[in-house]
């Protein structure tokens, strides 16, 4: 009896939690399928309306912005390029750096490790203007390169990979050496397949991180051609239902990735089997 009671209590708490998470998003979604006049008269809606296609198609294809130069579709394209770029660049560079730190007898290994590690303490927000002026000097404002590279100066993945490599048994390298594998072969044929789960988890993590950037794209893109979705939300004008529709669409890619790839993400980050 008490068991039934406590598990009923657990379900109740979880339902309340899920309710708090889902209802706000649902209401914005339901409201985005109505016309503006419905919202203006009756506020946010609980039930679906009939303007789904009208509103969403218009937002995707309508040219907005101050100079009416960019569609939401193009912003999604930009965000996708930026997020993919950040994910690949930061994961590849981290894999390589962690490999050198663990598998080489480097003279200043601990110094190098600290040089990389300490950067975690200085997020982009703390060096935003100097970083911007460097981008301006290098003529990289309004480019995908400018959107991607400064964000990829991240050492979190390096720490994760370094930690993981340390748990790899020494025998692996010994036997690889017996097989005649050199440093590149060992890295590509042995270590990378072994760290697949963690690579996938880090790719997901960095993709969401890149997609969700707000301040940096705001600063480094003066041309509307390079606007991304998350920063574009603030810049887009339009009627209230179109704003609702844009908000909902902006959430879809990262949520989809986290939900669909949930297992890989959690497996890699927490290293459970």
């Amino acid at each position, binding site marked *: 009896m008490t068991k039934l009671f406590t*598990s009923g*209590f*657990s*379900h109740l*708490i*979880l339902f309340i*939690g899920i309710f708090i*998470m889902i209802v*706000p*998003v649902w*209401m914005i979604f339901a409201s985005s399928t109505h016309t503006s006049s419905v919202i203006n008269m009756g*506020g*946010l809606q609980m039930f679906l309306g009939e303007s789904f296609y009208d509103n969403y198609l218009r937002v995707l294809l309508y040219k907005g912005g101050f100079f009416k130069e960019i569609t939401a579709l193009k912003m999604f394209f930009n965000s996708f390029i930026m997020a993919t770029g950040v994910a690949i660049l930061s994961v*590849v*560079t981290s894999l390589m*750096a962690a490999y*050198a*730190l663990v*598998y*080489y*007898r*480097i003279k200043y290994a601990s110094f*190098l490790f600290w040089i*990389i590690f300490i950067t975690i*303490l*200085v*997020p982009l*927000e*703390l*060096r*935003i*203007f*100097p*970083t911007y002026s460097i981008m301006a000097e290098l003529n990289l404002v309004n480019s995908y390169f400018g959107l991607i*590279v400064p964000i*990829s*100066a991240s*050492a979190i993945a390096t720490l994760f990979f370094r930690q993981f490599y340390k748990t790899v048994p*020494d025998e692996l*390298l010994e036997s690889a050496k017996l097989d005649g594998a050199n*440093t590149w072969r060992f890295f590509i044929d042995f270590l990378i397949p072994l760290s697949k789960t963690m690579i996938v988890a880090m790719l997901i993590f960095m993709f*969401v991180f890149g*997609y*969700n950037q*707000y*301040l940096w794209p705001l*600063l480094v893109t003066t041309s509307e051609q390079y606007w991304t979705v*998350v*920063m574009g*939300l*603030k810049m887009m004008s339009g009627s209230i239902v179109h704003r609702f529709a844009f*908000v909902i669409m902006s*959430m879809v890619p*990262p*949520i989809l990735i986290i*939900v669909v790839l*949930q297992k890989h993400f*959690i497996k890699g*980050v927490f290293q*459970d089997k």
Partner: protein
Amino acid sequence: MKKVQFKSSYSQYLFLAPQLGILLIFLYWPIIQTFRDAFTMQDAFGFGTQFVWFDNFLFIFDDPAYFIAFKFTIIYSFVITLITGSIGLLLAVQANNVMHGKSAYKTLLIWPYAIAPAVVGVMANYFFSERFGLLYHLFNNIWGFNWYESVFDSYIYVIIAGSWKQISANFIFFLAGLQAIQKSVIEASMIDCKNSFRRFWTITFPLLMPTTFFLIIINITYAFFDTFGIIDTTTIGAPSGETRTLVYKAYMDGFRGLDLGSAGAQSIMMMLIVLVITIFQFRYIEGKIHYN
């Protein structure tokens, strides 16, 4: 340290070069520049810069707005850590308890983690707008809520907006922490202690300490830095600067006020704060908890 390693050769630098290159150009160079900004001042016409020692720092200490932002940042990170940590823990314990639907609950609770803070802010806007905001009107009916004028009410606004998605992150990590506790420990404790409430606080919670301290750091960094997008899309500091975090203020002073000296000095103050928290975490807390 590995016993078997490659001998030092040119190839180690090839592996290190990409990351170190990016860090040097886009991290260390800007940091050096930040220090240069912080110790120099541009003259009124922008023709040249002058080395001014600690003047920029003295100015920010003289600025009441800096202390308002400082106070808000401390309160904000404390409250967000407390709220998201306790709700995340509560949900994780319940999800770990149930026999059926564990993975469904997990999926239904982790997705808000993926939403950008700026997007959460835009959404919160709709619930706190005077025109049709449900929460605005609900709170307004109860105690005359008005975040445009009341500091307390604007705190409530940004705290709700800032906590919502962060609950998910706390939930994921606490759940993973709970699942890592060995079954035998829990079973043994069930024999020794019948009261499940007491059992949780004396057995389970101490075992979760590493997760808890990790999350405290995660939540504080979130409240310091990631909430920029939330503040910028909700109150923008309303009523009059009381809901600006230190990062938000530094950005505004540098961007709107074009005062790079002050922005640089504020950034360095932030770096010091982060450094102190990190050292505290390593020295003080890590020594006191037990990892199993």
